[in-house]
Structure formats: C-alpha cells, structure tokens
C-alpha cells in the first residue's frame, strides 16, 4: 500500500480522491514505465546536464581546447548575458510574444468555441474546417505568413490595394516596421494555436450539464451572465488542459520567427530561441549558447508546471 504510514482518515481521503481506484500491482507498473524513462534520461536529461556543464565553460566549436571547466570562470557566460543588451531585448521580446500570443489565442478560441457550440448546420464539416491550421507544420505557417505579409507581392497588401485602402506606392512593410513585425508573428502563432484550443474548449462546453443552464434561465440570467458565472468557471479544467498542451510546444514559435524575420530587421523581433541559434550555431559559441538554452529550459518548464498545477487543482471529480 502506498499510504501505509499515513493516518487512517488521510488514507480514506486518498482512496476517495482516487476514484479510478487504481490497482496495486507491486513493481509491475515500474517495469512498464522503465523503457520510456530510460530513453528520456538518455536523450533529454543527460544531454541537458551536459549542456549545463558546457554553459560553465567558454567552449567554442572551432576551438576544441576551450571546453575546459575552471571554477573561477564558471559563471562568465551568465555574466556576459546579464550585460548583453541584445539578450535583454530578446528576453523582453519573448515575454511580450508569449504573453500576447497565449492570451489572444485563448480568448479567441474561447469565443469561437462558444459560437461553434450553437451551430446547428453542418457541425462536423465545420469541425473539419476548424482543423485546417493543424495541417500546417510551424515552419509552413511561418512561410505562408511571410508570403501573405510580403510588402510587394503579399496577399494582404494586394487585397488592401484592391479595396483602395492603400496606394501601390504606400505598401505596408508588415515584416519590417515596429511593431508590425511582432504583430504579424503573433498573428501567425495565434492562427496555429487556435484549432487545438478550440477543439478542447468546444468539447468541454458540449459536456456541461444542461440542468444548470435551465435553472439559471428560470432565475432570469442573461446570456453573458450564464457565460460569466456558469460556462467559464465550469470550463476551467478544459482551459488548463488546453493551456498545458499548448505550453508543451510553446517553443515551436521559433520555427515561425526563424522563417518569417529571423529576428530581424535590426533584431526587432529577436527572441531567446533565435538568439541561441545565432550565438551557438552561427558564431559557434556553444558555451554562451548553452547558458542561454538553460534560461529557456527554465522558462518553459516553469510555464508548463504552472498550467499543470492549475489543471490538477481544477480537475472534475466524477
């Protein structure tokens, strides 16, 4: 038994919470998990620890002797980053990008899921249509938005010209201007995020108990009140699942930035991920790049951990 040492009342509570009443099977479950854990240790954990070591050295790929650890100089890469304006700018850009992109994706998907829950004509066809952005690899999303927002041949400017809203000479430099470059990248990432979020929120909305809404209607609740005080709180576990799943893949935004602007022009859209590539792959400064990698790992894990904790708190007890 797991909880042998706990008091009896705690034990009962634990049992009640474990509504699936999982089976006790000794070491058998560990044998099932072992291969997965081994692979992850080998391919993710060990390289990450190695990368932590590299981050304490001044390693550059073209100078093989530079991979040596000296305690006195161990934190030099991190010091360099703290004094690097471009690092701070890319950190700031990353935070702004994540904050706006995650919130905007969530709000749009929430609204869309409420709309889709009311659709009576062609439900299943609409859901297939909703999944269309899922068919795009992130790198494809970036490519197509780079093309659509291209100043000279892009769809968006051509469309605006056709409508007579802008002149041929006055084409908008979407990917170049501040803050348009950032906005365009955020638009691309929101477009990519919408399907999974909406699908989960829609499934949640459709699973809500009808009686609650009927009772609210009897009490004269308005549509907005029903959403604000019933639908939205009851959707919490679904919201956190959606956000947890999204947070797992948050760094795939790198693909979009890399192909759309590659951090430019003049580092206006530089983010941590693109800056790592520039430092480590292009300038072969693996030590410095690894130090920055660790900062992104830390951020990503924190992000996922936060949403996962919220999810555990909000879970439905059946």
């Amino acid at each position, binding site marked *: 038994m797991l909880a042998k040492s706990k008091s009896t009342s705690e034990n009962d509570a634990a049992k009640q919470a474990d509504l699936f009443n999982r089976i006790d099977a000794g070491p058998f479950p560990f044998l099932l998990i072992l291969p*997965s854990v081994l692979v992850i240790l080998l391919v*993710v954990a060990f390289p990450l620890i*190695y990368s932590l070591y590299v981050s304490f050295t001044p390693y550059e790929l073209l100078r093989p002797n530079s991979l040596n650890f000296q305690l006195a100089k161990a934190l030099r890469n991190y010091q360099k980053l703290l004094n690097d304006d471009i690092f701070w700018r890319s950190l700031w850009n990353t935070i702004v990008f994540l904050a706006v992109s995650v919130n905007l994706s969530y709000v749009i998907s929430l609204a869309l899921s409420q709309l889709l829950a009311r659709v009576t004509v062609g439900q299943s066809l609409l859901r*297939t249509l909703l*999944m269309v952005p899922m068919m795009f690899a*992130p790198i494809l999303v970036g*490519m197509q938005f780079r093309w659509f927002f291209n100043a000279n041949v892009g769809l968006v400017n051509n469309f605006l010209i056709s409508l007579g809203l802008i002149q041929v000479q006055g084409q908008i430099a979407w990917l170049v201007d501040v803050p348009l470059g950032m906005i365009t990248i955020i638009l691309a990432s929101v477009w990519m995020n919408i399907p999974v979020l909406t699908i989960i929120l829609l499934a949640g909305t459709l699973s809500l108990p009808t009686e609650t809404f009927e009772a609210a209607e009897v009490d004269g609740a308005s549509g907005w009140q029903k959403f604000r005080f019933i639908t939205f709180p009851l959707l919490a576990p679904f919201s956190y699942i959606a956000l947890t799943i999204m947070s797992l893949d948050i*760094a795939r935004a790198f693909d979009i930035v890399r192909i759309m602007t590659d951090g430019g022009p003049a580092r206006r859209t530089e983010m941590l991920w693109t800056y790592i590539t520039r430092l480590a792959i292009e300038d072969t400064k693996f030590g410095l790049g690894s130090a920055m990698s660790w900062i992104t790992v830390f951020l990503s894990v924190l992000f996922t951990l936060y949403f996962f904790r919220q999810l555990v708190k909000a879970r439905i007890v059946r």
Partner: protein
Amino acid sequence: MITRSVGPNRRRNDIIWNAAAWLILLFLALPAFWIIMTAFRPNVEINTFPPVWIPRRLTLEAYANMFGLNPEVQQRVAVEAYLRNSLLAAGTSTIVAVSLGTLAGYAFARFRFRFHTTLFLGIMLSRSVPGVALSLPLFLLFNRAGLTNNVFGLAFVYVAVNIPFTAWLMDGFFRQIPQELTESAYIDGCGHWSAFWRIELPLSLPGLATAAIFAFLAAWNEFQIVSVLARNNAAKTFPPGLFAFTEQFTVDWRGMAAMSVIMMVPAVIFVILVQRNLVSGLTFGAVKG
C-alpha cells in the same frame, strides 16, 4: 449543452450564429486554400500586378520542375531525399515511441504506485524542453558518437520527444475502459501482462491509432532539432528542406507552395481519420484520477 433562447428571436439568432461560425471558419481556412491553389497555377498568374484572384488555368508544372521532369529546369531540390528521410525518421520513431509510450500510459492509467504524479509530471516536463536548447548538447554528443547526419540517430531523438504526449493520450484512452473489465480478467486467471495484452490493448486500438498519427506528425513537422543534427541530404527532412528552399529561391512562391502541399498530405489524412478520437483522448485529462 448550451440552451438556446426561446421565443420569436430564436430563429433569427440561430441564423446569425450559423452564418457567423461559417464565415469565421472559412476565413481561418483561407490560407490553406490559397497555398494549395498556388501550387497548381501557372507562374505568370502568381507574380503579376494587379493580382489574379481566381485561377484561369491549372497546371502541374511546379511538380514537374520539382521532380526534374521538365528538361528546361535543372533539378534543384532534393525532394526525394527529403521524402525518404522524413518517412524513415517519422516512421521508425513513431513505432518505437508509441510502443513505449503506450506501456507507460497504461501504467499511469491502471496502477497505483509510489511517485505516480512525480513520474508523470517528469515525463511531461521533458517534452517542454525547447528543441533549440536540446539541439546544442545533442549536436556535440552526436558528433562524438558519429550520429550526426544519420536518420536513425534523428529517429532516436524523436522517440524521446514523442513518448510524453503518447503517454498522456494513452493514459486518457485507457482510463475510459471500465476498470471492472480488468478485474474480471484477473478473476479469470489473467496476470497483469496478459490482462493488458489480451483485453485492454485490443480495446484501445482506436486510441493507439490517434497517438501514432500524432507522433508521426510531430516528427514529420519537427524543424529545430533536425536543422542542427542534419547538415546534409543524408538526413535532412522536409522542414529544413523547405527552409533551405526559401533561403535559396526567395521569390519562387509557387515552388514553396508545391513543397508545402506535399508536406501537408499526412496531416490531411490525419484530420480525416482521427478527428473524433483525438477530442476524447485530449479532454479525458480533465477528469480527476
């Protein structure tokens, strides 16, 4: 379910909701239509001004050029290599990741054991490590082991990348199978393994297919790790291939669109096949357990 407003407004509201939903979703899907259409248009229609919105003629020129069937255009993209590498890396990694991840997912769904939540969380967190961050040490280690530019080295990485999400999905699917079934299997004399292998695994096959397609697509679409680990066409897959293409031929939008359409084929199949299962696998994590 949402209850609808009653009374004379109801019909009008219904029409508005439906129309709005259709308009918004058509707008969302528009980019995909545009990309597919561009791949099959003659070049003169693409780069002209004023723009030609509706194609007057469709052609397979872009694909003839890409596969070197047009004698006037020298073949310049190693599509065959990308296709082979993508299929190999995504295919092998999917088979291994789904096998291992399913075992793990079953353990989390069915059994009570020490460090249940910690192990689950640890596996999930390994997925949140950004590919860029992981690619640097992997490059150094793979260089030493002679595994760079190797499709199977790449596939090995994708196994680790795909295990967490497979475990998450399969945990959800296994939890939907009633526990009584397992218990009655035990009463009939099944051991833990044969209850899993003979009773529960066959029942979870639709879920398994969903997880497999998900893993395949994740590997198929992966860009960050492969672009560091694969420096030549021996291991380059489609995403870095497309990226190289956009760098080299910055204005050949039709060529890019044509490549994109090939990249989208597995995803289109996925959307058609697993829609329904995907939703139930994703949302079951909302239930406590």
